[in-house]
């Protein structure tokens, strides 16, 4: 275990299987990666490649995995304790599904505070709403009174209110419009800088990952094929055939302008 503490998060030989006996499928197969403190690491791949499964295993939503997940040099127990959630929080893909429809924003935000025994509830709620760019008027609203972008801001506020070190982001903007996506990505970037956060972000959108993360693992059929840094993604410097194809498919859609101008 020595030397491992250079990294804040480490996955060593992580495997996840679903199903029983002869129908058992390995959806994550011997995956290893590491994330330094303050870094943003991305996992990219198509649906079904296992990227969200890794996130669920790491977040403690699925304790049925093999291999080790290490946080700050210590292997995490399969059943996570409260101290883990104090340090690691998650933001989900669908802001329409991840907020309780019958709880006003204030109650949504007060819950994690009560669970983790924080003081000054009211002030903290005010501060965090401010930090995610929602004014005090949002405090007494129900989720149905908020737009998709505002809900995602509430979800981010809920994750950050207990001052965690790590945010796990599962496609945080894929349900949003491009203009709202720009707002949320800017917000996440700013919060990371201000609060010295570490991100693990899952997305199928290459441009979003290249914008947000320093490094990313390209996943295919449960494995990380290769790791690229943002520059390599932008320059399409991939070794594996699949990665190249994936980069090509994404770039074709994104970088249209040069062709058009030519």
């Amino acid at each position, binding site marked *: 275990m020595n030397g491992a503490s250079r990294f804040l998060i480490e996955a060593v030989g992580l495997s996840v299987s679903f199903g029983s006996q002869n129908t058992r499928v390995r959806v994550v197969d011997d995956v290893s990666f590491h994330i330094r403190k303050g870094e943003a690491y991305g996992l990219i791949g*198509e*649906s*079904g490649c296992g990227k969200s499964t890794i996130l669920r295993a790491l977040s403690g939503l699925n304790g049925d995995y093999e291999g080790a997940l290490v946080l700050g040099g210590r292997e995490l127990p399969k059943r996570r304790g409260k101290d883990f959630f104090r340090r690691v929080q998650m933001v989900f893909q669908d802001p329409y599904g991840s907020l309780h429809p019958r709880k006003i924003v204030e109650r949504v935000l007060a819950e994690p505070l009560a669970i983790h025994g924080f003081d000054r509830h009211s002030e903290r709620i005010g501060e965090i709403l401010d930090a995610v760019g929602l004014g005090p008027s949002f405090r007494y609203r129900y989720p149905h009174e908020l737009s*998709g972008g505002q809900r995602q801001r509430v979800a981010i506020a809920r994750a950050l209110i207990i001052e965690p070190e790590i945010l796990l982001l599962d496609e945080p903007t894929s349900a949003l*419009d*491009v*203009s*709202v*996506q*720009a*707002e949320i*990505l*800017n917000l996440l*970037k700013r919060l990371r800088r201000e609060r010295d956060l570490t991100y693990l972000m899952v997305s*199928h*959108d*290459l*441009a*979003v990952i*290249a*914008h*947000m993360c320093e490094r990313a693992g390209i996943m295919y059929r449960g494995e990380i094929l290769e790791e690229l840094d*943002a520059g390599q*993604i*932008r320059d399409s410097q991939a070794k594996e055939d699949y990665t190249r*194809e*994936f980069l090509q*498919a*994404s*770039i*074709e*859609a*994104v*970088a*249209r*302008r*040069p062709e*058009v*101008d030519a």
Partner: protein
Amino acid sequence: MDKPLIDVKDLRIRFESAHGSHEAVRGISFTIGREKVGIVGESGSGKSLTGRSLLKLTPKGAKITAAHMRFRGTDLLAAGEKEMRTIRGNHISMILQDPKYSLNPLMRIGNQIVEAYRLHHKARPAEAKTKALAMLESVHIREPERVFDLFPHEVSGGMGQRIMIAMMLIPEPDLIIADEPTSALDVTVRRQVLTILDELVSRRGTGLMFISHDLNLVASFCDRVLVMYAGRIMEDLPARDLHSARHPYTQALLESLPRLDHPVDELKVPLRDPSWLNGSVYHNGALI
């Protein structure tokens, strides 16, 4: 070219409620011929409602008015429910966003396609089945015989969407309204589905109204683009000119996208100008 399939002038869709009325689509005019027309806009811009109004599938409270709204000479405004039923599917069909919700979960895939075919053509079951299998093959499904007997939950999203396309194309409509047909799909699958859609649409000369929030996708896939904002068409231009769009809203949308070839520290968030609500709009790069 020949006469447009769809000719809409000054279409307005209004919702009346106890709090007063709200106009979701505010006086738009457009035509669609045998071409691929993309409608882009953010949620709430009225793009889906516009698509649905052509089939008169808008929610109950919606009041549709227009100077005219014609489909190949048929006045859609005056058409009754019976007449609409012959138009729906037969002449205009619709591909929805998520195959998970738009396929019947309790019915085998093949039977759903057969049903779509037999609703519009007089055909014996065996004949319809042959036709459905051929259709599955034309959307590049490798083992049509096997897939025919599957239930929707047994296929992937990309395959589900191809099945939807098969189902919508089998009555051989003149116009297809595709409402975000690929936004639930992955990039690699998306390309495959679009290629198939393009292939079928071009081969039959079907008109396509492609509703999407993805500017890049529309720019590369469609022939013409209508940019909608707050219930109005802000800009109507050929897709290849999208990146030299004139309207500040279109430009702002394009700038808010993270780009691979152009790293930025902070993305531009479109600022909305209230004057756009009633201001001037662009047609083929010219102010009108």
